[in-house]
């Protein structure tokens, strides 16, 4: 047991979009970055959730020039700033929403999320959670496919960046 080490007490991977529609898993699946202690559920003072919006679209040229054939939005929401015994900054909750997902004739979309191993990005006595995640998938049809690849890093102080 150590409050300076972190772990994810939730899920590490789940489906986000399945055959062009929001996957049922997003309604019940969460992840987090919390200290390795027995009473991590007693974290307090969480802020947020902050939101990161990722939108992807495909525009076609024929027979309707400029028509948007695929358009979906994935929102990553995470609570941050939760403290253990008045210190540290942890991520007690992370979840995914899909507020928009439209797919045209003969197109399909599959996307999933994989949460990486949480780490302490600060000192042992004042840990700050660092949590990488990857949202990956494919937009495809009978004749073409294109990958979806978004990597994010989240921190317990509320900051985030694109990339690992």
């Amino acid at each position, binding site marked *: 047991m150590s*409050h300076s080490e972190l772990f994810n007490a939730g899920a590490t991977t789940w489906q986000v979009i399945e055959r062009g529609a929001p996957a049922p898993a997003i309604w019940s699946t969460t992840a987090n970055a919390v200290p390795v202690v027995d009473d991590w559920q007693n974290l307090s003072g969480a*802020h*947020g959730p*902050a*939101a*990161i*919006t*990722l*939108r*992807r*679209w*495909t*525009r*076609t*040229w*024929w*027979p*309707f020039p400029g028509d948007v*054939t*695929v358009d979906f939005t994935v929102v990553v929401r995470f609570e*941050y*700033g939760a*403290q*253990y*015994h*008045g*210190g*540290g*900054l942890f991520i007690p909750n992370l979840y995914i929403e899909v507020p928009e997902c439209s797919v045209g*004739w*003969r197109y*399909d979309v599959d996307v999933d999320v994989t949460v990486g191993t949480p780490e302490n990005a*600060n*000192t042992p*006595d*004042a*840990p*700050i959670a660092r949590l990488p995640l990857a949202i990956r998938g494919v*937009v*495809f*049809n*009978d*004749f*073409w*496919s*294109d990958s979806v690849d*978004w990597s994010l890093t989240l921190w*317990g*102080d*509320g*900051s*985030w960046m*694109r990339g690992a």
Partner: protein
Amino acid sequence: MGDDPGMDGDRVPREFVEAGAPASLADWSDEQRDGYFRGEAGELIEGDAPIRLEVAPIGDWPTEDWPTRDW
């Protein structure tokens, strides 16, 4: 990957046909297939700019190792 165009999906939606597309996918030219099935991708990423919090050390809490006061 997707449905076989030779099965039920060979039929083209009415709005496509009204726009000039052949009614059977098998009759589409390579240029027409590229124009619809290849497409051009775009993306946008944006997020909240939350206040970056300051971190405090985790407080010392009584443990079994703490000496007890001798009253």
